[in-house]
C-alpha cells in the first residue's frame, strides 16, 4: 500500500537532489553557458563549487555581503518573532478562558491567508502616499513621507517578522498549553514572585519549544526571497534566498543556482535534523 507514495517520493524528492548534485558538480557548456550535469559521481568536478565559495568568502567576494546580511536579518527577525510570539502564546494558553477558541482562530487566520496577499496588504500601507505615512505625518511624527519600500532593512526585517511570527506562536502555544498550571501555582504558593516563577519554572519548561520555534521561523526565512522582492527590491537588502532566485532566473546561471542551493542546504541540515529528531521523539510516547 505504501509503495506508490514511496516510489513517488523516491522519484520526486530524492532524485531531484541527486540531479542537484550532478549539476553542482558538473560543468558548464562553454558556448551556451547552460549547465552540463555529470551523472557519474566518480567524475564530479568541484570547479563551480569552489568558484562560488570564493565569491562568498574570498577576496572581492561579491556574494559575501548578502550572506552576512542573511545571518543578521534572520537573527534579528527570529529574535523579534520570539519576543512577540512568547507573550501572545502565553496569554492565549493560560488566560484565554472563554475567548480561547476565537483567539486561536485569529492566530490561525494568517495560515489561510495567502502570503502574497499579506505582503500586498503591507505594500499598500507602506507606499509613499500610503496610510502609514499619512498617519505618521498627520500625528506630526514625520515631516515628510518616508520611503519605506525603497530598500530599507527595517522594512525587510519587519516584513519577515510579520510573515513568520504565526509559526512561532503556534509552536510555543502547543508547548505552553501542555505546562501543568499547578506547577506554576506551586511556585507562587512557595513564595516565588511572578518574575521568578517565570524564570525558574515556565522558561525552563519551554526551552525546547523556544528552540523549535526559532528553527521553524529561521529556516523558511533563509530561503525567502519574495518578502525582500516585494518590500524592498533593492540589491542592498538581498539575502541568500534572493541570490538563489536571481541565479535560477538568469539564463546561464543555473549551475551557480544549484551550488547555492547545495550550500544553503548544507548549512541548514543540522537545525533541520534537530527539529526532525526532537519532534519524532516527542511523538513516540503519545503513540504508545
Amino acid at each position, binding site marked *: 500500500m505504501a509503495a506508490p507514495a514511496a516510489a513517488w517520493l523516491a522519484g520526486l524528492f530524492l532524485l531531484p537532489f541527486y540531479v542537484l548534485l550532478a549539476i553542482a558538480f558538473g560543468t558548464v557548456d562553454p558556448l551556451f553557458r547552460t549547465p552540463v550535469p555529470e551523472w557519474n559521481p566518480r567524475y564530479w568536478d568541484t570547479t563551480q563549487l569552489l568558484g562560488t565559495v570564493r565569491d562568498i568568502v574570498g577576496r572581492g567576494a561579491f556574494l559575501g555581503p548578502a550572506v552576512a546580511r542573511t545571518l543578521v536579518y534572520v537573527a534579528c527577525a527570529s529574535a523579534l518573532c520570539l519576543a512577540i510570539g512568547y507573550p501572545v502564546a502565553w496569554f492565549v494558553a493560560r488566560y484565554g478562558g472563554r475567548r480561547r477558541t476565537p483567539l486561536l482562530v485569529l492566530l490561525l487566520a494568517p495560515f489561510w491567508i495567502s502570503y502574497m496577499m499579506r505582503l500586498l496588504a503591507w505594500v499598500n500601507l507602506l507606499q509613499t502616499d500610503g496610510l502609514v505615512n499619512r498617519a505618521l505625518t498627520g500625528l506630526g511624527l514625520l515631516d515628510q513621507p518616508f520611503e519605506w519600500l525603497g530598500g530599507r532593512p527595517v522594512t525587510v526585517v519587519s516584513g519577515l517578522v510579520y510573515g513568520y511570527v504565526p509559526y512561532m506562536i503556534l509552536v510555543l502555544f*502547543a508547548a505552553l498549553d501542555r505546562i501543568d498550571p499547578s506547577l506554576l501555582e506551586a511556585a507562587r504558593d512557595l513564595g516565588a514572585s511572578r518574575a521568578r516563577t517565570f524564570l525558574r519554572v515556565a522558561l525552563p519548561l519551554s526551552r525546547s519549544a523556544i528552540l523549535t520555534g526559532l528553527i521553524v521561523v529561521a529556516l523558511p526565512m533563509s530561503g*525567502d526571497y519574495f518578502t525582500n522582492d516585494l518590500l524592498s527590491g533593492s540589491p542592498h537588502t538581498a539575502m541568500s534566498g534572493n541570490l538563489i532566485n536571481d541565479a535560477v532566473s538568469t539564463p546561464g546561471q543555473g549551475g551557480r543556482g544549484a551550488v547555492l542551493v547545495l550550500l544553503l542546504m548544507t548549512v541548514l541540515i543540522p537545525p533541520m535534523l534537530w527539529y526532525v529528531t526532537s519532534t519524532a521523539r516527542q511523538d513516540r510516547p503519545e503513540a504508545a
Partner: protein
Amino acid sequence: MSRAARPDGAPPGMAGSGVGAETLQPATAHRPAWWRNPWRRPAFLAAFTWLYLAWSILPIVIAVLFSFNAGRSRSTWQGFSLRWYWRDPVLSVWHDGTLRAALGHSVELAALTTLIAVPLGVAFAIGVDRWRGRVGRVFTFQMLLTFVLPEILLAVAILLLVTNMLEFVPLGTTAQVLGLVTFQLSYPMVICRARLLTIGREYEEAARDLGASPAQALWRVLLPLLAPAIFASAVLVFADVIDDFVIVRYLSADAASEPMSVKIYAGTRSSPTPALNALATIMLVFTLVTVTLGYLAYRRLTRDERGREPAVRELVARV
C-alpha cells in the same frame, strides 16, 4: 485532561489577599491593591495580545476594503464599487483575461493536486502503519523534513530535475502538479497516521475474525473510520495549494500557467491597481470558505466522538 480541570483565569477566592500581602511584602505596600493581588489578570499581556492581533489582521482588512474602491488608489477611499471585480470592462478581474485565467489555473492545480496527493498519502499511511520498524521511521523522517525544508530548495531541485533529466515532463501544469503533490503528501500522511493510531487495530481484526477478506476489512471498516481524516487532509491540501507560490512559480511555463499568487507577486510592485486586491480577496474567500466548510463537515463526521479531535490540532501545532 488537565485542560478540563483548568480554572478559567483566576481561581476564585484568591482575590482579596491585600492584608496578608502587606505584612509579607512591606516594600510593595505603597502599590495599589490591584497590583498587589497575586492573581490579577495580566492586563499588559492582554493588551499586547490584542495589539498583535490588530497588527496581524488589520492590514488584510484594509486590503480587502480597498478592493471595493471606486478609484485607482489603494490608500484614498473614493467610494464603494465593484469596479475591480467585474464592472470595469478592461482592468477588472473578470474582464482582464490574464487575471481570470490565473483564477482558473489556481483552482485547477488545487483540484488535481488534491486528487493525486490524498489517495497516495492515505495508502501510504495505511501501509506504513503495519510496516512500522525501520522503513516506517525513514518515511516519518522524510515527512517531518518537508515541514521545515525551505520550499525554495525543493522547488529548485525539482526544476533542475525536470529541465535536465526528465525532459519529457513539460513545464506548466504537469510539472507544477508533480511538485505540489511531492510537497503536499505530508498532510494526508500525518493526519491519517495520527487517526490510525487512535483507531487501533481491533476493528479491523474483528472484521477479519468475522470472515472479511483483507480487502473487505480495508474497504468496509478501515476506510469509513478514516473518512474524517481523509476529508480533513483533502481540505488542507486544497487550501494550501491555492496559496502556494514558490513551487508553482518555478515550475510554470509561461504567463498562462501562472496562478493567482504569482500574478499578485508580479503585479504588486509593477502595475498596482485595486484589481490585484480584488484577486487577492477572491483567493482569500476561496481558502476561507474551503477551510470553514471543511471544519464544519469535519465536526459533523466526528460528531459521535468528541474529544478525539487532536488529529487536526496536532497537525496545526506542527505546520
